[in-house]
């Protein structure tokens, strides 16, 4: 049975939903503990129903990967974890890769499932599903965001202190400033419903159409690379090859052609609805419901109907 340690990334005092989902998956196939790293994070660690290691130290306050490798590598060696799992993020990917090199452990990424010995990962732009394994004593894996649901943890919380012993090179990089974008509503990684806008919106102000529909559906707003590059919407909302990979229960694509670079970021969505005036747009090839029409007429009506239904 796998003895797994899950990296519990936190932001603004809460653990990322993606990391909690990975923890509940790991708990369903073996023993699963968590590790929370930061400064003033004891309460965060105490919020999870399992054993949680906490490295609560000013020196690991900034979200930089290399000090995290030090903390996790020591836990793996001292406590005998055979598996370390992460939910995808910039910080998690860098930490996982550094850890793999430190421990000479195999790293599989893009996972959507794990059974305690093997993982499953769609690869080559999701044209093939690969059952992946590890031949090293320690397995390291990164899960796609949105690939798992958060399940209940039946254990009891126990917070244990993790040692913070840092390598010289791990502390060489320093955080000068963190400028965090203001978040309105749920983040796209955590949302069950995403309304995404592309060039077809016509102008940046028309993102209000996506925002209003998202708010009616209780979802988050995403954007294509084209409109992010054009400055219409922040990078944190970008879905696709150079942005985030999401798999919500519902993905509504407004004025998005569906280029492969966008497709790879959202094709794992449960249900895809697309509205586009171009009947030949590639997005219709992988939509569950494709609507050929003018989104500027359809979306306001749709928002009203959804609101009426919910009230």
């Amino acid at each position: 049975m796998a003895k797994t340690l899950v990296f519990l990334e936190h932001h603004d005092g809460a653990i990322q939903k993606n990391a909690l989902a990975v923890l509940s998956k790991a708990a369903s196939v073996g023993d699963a503990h968590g590790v929370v790293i930061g400064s003033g994070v004891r309460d965060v660690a105490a919020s999870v129903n399992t054993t949680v290691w906490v490295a609560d130290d000013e020196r690991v306050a900034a979200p930089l990967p290399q000090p995290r490798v030090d903390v996790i590598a020591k836990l793996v060696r001292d406590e005998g974890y055979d598996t370390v799992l992460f939910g995808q993020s910039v910080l998690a990917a860098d930490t996982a890769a550094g850890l793999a090199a430190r421990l000479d452990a195999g790293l599989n990424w893009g996972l959507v499932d794990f059974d305690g010995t093997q993982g499953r990962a769609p690869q080559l732009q999701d044209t093939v599903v690969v059952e992946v394994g590890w031949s090293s004593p320690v397995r390291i894996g990164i899960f796609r965001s949105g690939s798992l649901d958060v399940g209940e943890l039946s254990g009891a919380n126990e917070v244990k202190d993790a040692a913070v012993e840092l390598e010289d090179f791990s502390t060489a990089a320093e955080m000068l400033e963190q400028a965090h974008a203001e978040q309105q509503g749920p983040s796209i990684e955590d949302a069950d419903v995403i309304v995404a806008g592309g060039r077809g919106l016509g102008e940046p102000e028309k993102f209000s159409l996506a925002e209003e529909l998202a708010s009616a559906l209780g979802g988050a707003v995403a954007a294509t690379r084209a409109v992010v590059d054009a400055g219409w919407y922040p990078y944190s909302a970008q879905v696709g090859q150079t942005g985030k990979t999401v798999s919500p229960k519902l993905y509504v694509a407004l004025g998005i052609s569906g280029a492969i670079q966008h497709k790879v970021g959202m094709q794992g969505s449960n249900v895809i609805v697309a509205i586009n005036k171009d009947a030949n747009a590639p997005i219709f090839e992988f939509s569950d419901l494709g609507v050929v029409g003018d989104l500027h007429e359809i979306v306001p009506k749709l928002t009203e109907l959804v609101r009426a239904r919910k009230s």
Partner: protein
Amino acid sequence: MDRSGELAISDFDTYAVEEALKLKESAGEGEVVVVSMGPERAMDALRKALAMGADRAVLITDSALEGADLLVTAKALAGALEGEAPDLVLFGQQSADGGGAVLWAAVAERLRRPVISQASELTVDGASVTGKRQTEFGYDSIRAPLPAIVAVSDAINTPRYPSLKGIMGAKKKPQETVAPSAAGDAATTVVELSPPPPRGEARKIEDDGSAAEQIVEFLAEKRLV
């Protein structure tokens, strides 16, 4: 997996090459070396970077590296980089085939150097490099002493196209093929490949004025509203 096609430099890597060339140009001195790992014909791909303006190319190649995973690749690259002893190692955002964004952090660990990833801005100031990192939450400004490892995002610049003169000159630039100083066994395995699960039946409608109603009906059917 068919890997017999023409090997091209990854689009993502052209941003790293461009940034290196810009740093050299603004410093007025320095050398830009492009390093890759792959079969011998991968040198053709490195020649594009030489045509853009890089000074020389090093290709790590060995039949033992076929099917290399992250660990094997990181070891081979770190071995070559130790020999080169550069002030700054730049990576592109992700490899175009594997889609993974992980290599630089493993190489940095092997070399015991600081790493900055997803940099959408980069400044080198004497003995340190400062990068603006794009994350899920916004932008971080991170500074590290040189030598350092930096992975740049594709928002950092617009890569130049090689000029005809550059393309002609590339052939004469030093191109070295080296064997890996250290090879190891892959620590990950591919157990089985299968096709992705098919999507359900797709419906496509033209808006006749009732599209909004039809969408709501569809969402209700799927229990999404």
